[in-house]
C-alpha cells in the first residue's frame, strides 16, 4: 500500500516537472506559440477522449455525444465566469458537475437496457443540445456564439504558457484519477461489465449501477474538458460541438486502443497534430477519419495499444533496479 503511494507520488512529481519544463520552454519561446496551441488543444482532446474511453473502452458502452457534454461544460464555464464572476477553478469544477447531472439524466433511462440504445440516445443528445444552445439566446448568444470569454490570464505574453499549464495539469490529474479508478474494486467491476454483463450480474455486480457510475464520471470529465476549452478559445459557438466533433474523440479512442489510457494519450497527440499537418488536403481530410475508423475496426480492432499500458514506473525499475527484482518487475509491468 505504502509502495503504491510512493510510486504515485514519484509519477506525479515526474509529471509536474515535465509540465513545468514544457511551460517554461513555451514562455521563453523555444516552443513557438503555434506549437504550444496545438499541444494545448491536444491536451483538451485527450481529456475528453479519456472520458469517452472510460465509458466506451472500459465499460463497453458506445457513447456518441461527448461533444454535447463538452458543449455543456464549455458554456457553463463561460457563463459562470462572465455572468457570475466565478474564479476559474470553481467555474471549471461547476461545469463538470453540471455536465455530470446531464449524464445522470441521459444515463438513467438508457443504461438499464441491454443493447445499443446509449449510442443512439447520446447521438440524439448531442444534436438536441445544439438546438437548445441556439435557442437560449439570452444565455448562450444563440447561433452567433459567445464572444469575449476571459482567458486563463490577462497577460498576453503569459497566456500560451499558462493555458498549457492549466490544461496539462488537468490532463495529468485525469490520467492519475482514471488509472487509479481502473485499478480499484470499482474499476474491476466496471471492466467485468464490459467483458460479460450476464456473468458480472450473476457474480453479484449491479450492472446498471456501475454503468451509471462510469457514465456519470465520464460526463464529468468531458464537462471539465469543455470547461477548459472555453477560456482557451475565448469564443464559443454551437456548431463547434457537432456530431463530427464527437467522432473525432471516438477516432482517438479507437486508434489508441479501447481500454488503454496510454493509447488514448498517444493517439490524442498524434491525431491532433495530424489534423493540423493535413490541412493541405483541404476537404479530403474529411474522408480520412472515417476510413481510419473502418480500417482499424476491420484489420486491427485493438488499436495501437489494445488494453495494454506503458508504465513509466516499470520502465524506471527495469533500467535502474538490481537484477534480483527484475523478473518480478517484468511481470508487474506486463500486467499493467
Amino acid at each position, binding site marked *: 500500500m505504502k509502495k503504491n503511494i510512493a510510486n504515485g507520488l514519484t509519477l506525479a512529481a515526474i509529471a509536474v516537472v515535465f509540465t513545468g519544463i514544457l511551460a517554461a520552454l513555451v514562455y521563453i519561446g523555444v516552443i513557438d506559440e503555434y506549437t504550444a496551441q496545438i499541444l494545448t488543444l491536444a491536451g483538451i482532446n485527450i481529456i475528453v477522449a479519456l472520458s469517452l474511453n472510460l465509458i*466506451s473502452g472500459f465499460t*463497453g*458502452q*458506445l457513447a*456518441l455525444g461527448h461533444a454535447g457534454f463538452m458543449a455543456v461544460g464549455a458554456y457553463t464555464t463561460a457563463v459562470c465566469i462572465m455572468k457570475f464572476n466565478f474564479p476559474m477553478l470553481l467555474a471549471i469544477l461547476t461545469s463538470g458537475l453540471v455536465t455530470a447531472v446531464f449524464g445522470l439524466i441521459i444515463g438513467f*433511462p*438508457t443504461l*438499464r*437496457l*441491454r443493447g*445499443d*440504445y446509449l*449510442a*443512439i*440516445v447520446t*447521438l*440524439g*443528445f448531442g*444534436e*438536441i443540445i445544439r*438546438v*437548445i444552445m441556439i*435557442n437560449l439566446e439570452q444565455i448562450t448568444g444563440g447561433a452567433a456564439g459567445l464572444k469575449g470569454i476571459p482567458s486563463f490570464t490577462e497577460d498576453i505574453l503569459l497566456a500560451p504558457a499558462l493555458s498549457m499549464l492549466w490544461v496539462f495539469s488537468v490532463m495529468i490529474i485525469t490520467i492519475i484519477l482514471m488509472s487509479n479508478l481502473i485499478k480499484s474494486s470499482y474499476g474491476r467491476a466496471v471492466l467485468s461489465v464490459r467483458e460479460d454483463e*450476464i456473468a458480472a450480474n450473476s457474480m453479484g455486480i449491479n450492472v446498471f449501477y456501475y454503468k451509471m457510475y462510469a457514465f456519470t464520471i465520464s460526463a464529468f470529465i468531458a464537462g471539465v474538458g469543455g470547461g477548459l476549452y472555453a477560456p482557451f478559445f475565448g469564443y464559443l459557438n454551437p456548431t463547434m460541438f457537432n*456530431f*463530427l466533433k464527437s*467522432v473525432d474523440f*471516438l477516432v482517438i479512442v*479507437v486508434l489508441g486502443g*479501447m481500454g488503454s489510457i496510454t493509447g488514448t494519450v498517444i493517439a490524442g497527440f498524434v491525431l491532433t497534430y495530424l489534423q493540423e499537418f493535413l490541412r493541405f488536403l483541404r*476537404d*479530403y481530410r*474529411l*474522408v480520412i*477519419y*472515417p*476510413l*481510419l*475508423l*473502418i480500417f482499424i*475496426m*476491420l484489420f486491427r*480492432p485493438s488499436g495501437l495499444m489494445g488494453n495494454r499500458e506503458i508504465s513509466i514506473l516499470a520502465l524506471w525499475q527495469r533500467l535502474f533496479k538490481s537484477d534480483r527484482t527484475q523478473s518480478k518487475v517484468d511481470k508487474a509491468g506486463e500486467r499493467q
Partner: protein
Amino acid sequence: MGFLHEFLQQMVNGLSLGSIYALLALGYTMVYGIVKLINFAHGDILMLGAFGGFFVLAAYGVTPLTFVLALLVGMIVCAVVGIVIEKTCYKPLRNAPRINALITAIGVSIFIENGARVVKVIGPNPKEFPTFKTVNFPIGDVNISQIQIIVFVVSIALMFLLTYIVNHTKLGKAMRAVSFDRPAAYLMGINVDWIISFTFALGSALAAAAGILFASAYPQVEPYMGIIPGLKAFVAAVLGGIGSIPGAMLGGFIMGIAETLTKGFISSQLADAIAFGILILILVVKPSGILGKNVSEKV
C-alpha cells in the same frame, strides 16, 4: 373551427411525412432483426438515393414516367451500395464484439456523407430537387397537395410489396428464419450470407425510395440531409418495437404525426427535439416498443 382545421391539416401532413419515416424505419428494423446492428449508414443511403433520383430528374425533366425511372434507378443503385457495404464492412465483423460493428457503421456513415461532400458532382452546397408543380386539392378546409398523395401512395405500395415478400415468398420465409435463429437456419440449408445481403439490399432500396419521396416533398438535396431523418426513423423503429415490420410502419406514422403536430401547435424548432423526447419516453415506459416482444436474455 380554427383548431380543428389546423389539426386535420397537420394530420394530413403528418401521414405523408410519416410514410417516409416508415419506409426508412423498415430498413433499420429488418437489419436489426437479422444481424442485431444499428445501421448508422441507413440515413445516408437515403441521401444517396435522393441524389440518384436528382440526376435522373435533372437529366430527363420531371414527368410521371421519369419519376418512376428515378425511383427505380435510385433503388437499384442503393441496393447495390447496401450489398457492397454489408460485404466489405459488416460481414467481417459479424462475430466481433458488437461495439466494433457499431463503430464501423459510424465510420461508414461519415465516410458516405463526407465522401459525397468531396465528390465533385455532389459537392457541399444544397441543390434544388426537380419536382412536380404543387397542385392542391382542397377537401373542405384541408389542403392536400398531389405530392403528398404521391408520397403516401408510393410508400403504401412499397410497404405492401415488402409485406408480401416477407410473408409470402420463399425468400421472406428464409429471412424470417435467419432472424429467428441464425445457426438453425444455416443447418437447414439456408444460405445465410445471401439472405443477409438480400435484407440489406431490400432495406437500402426502401431507403432510396424514401429519399426520393423526401426530396420531392422538401425539394432540396445535400450530403448531410440523411442524418436527421435517419435518427427519427430509428426512433420510429424503436417506438414500434425494433425487429418488428408492422411496428416500424406504425412507429413511422406516429413519428410523422407527432412531428407535424408539434410544428403546428407548439414550435417548429422543437420538432427535432420531440423525436428525442419520444425515444427517452419509450425507453423508460416500454423499451420493447409498441408491437415488440419482450425477449429475456439467455446465456
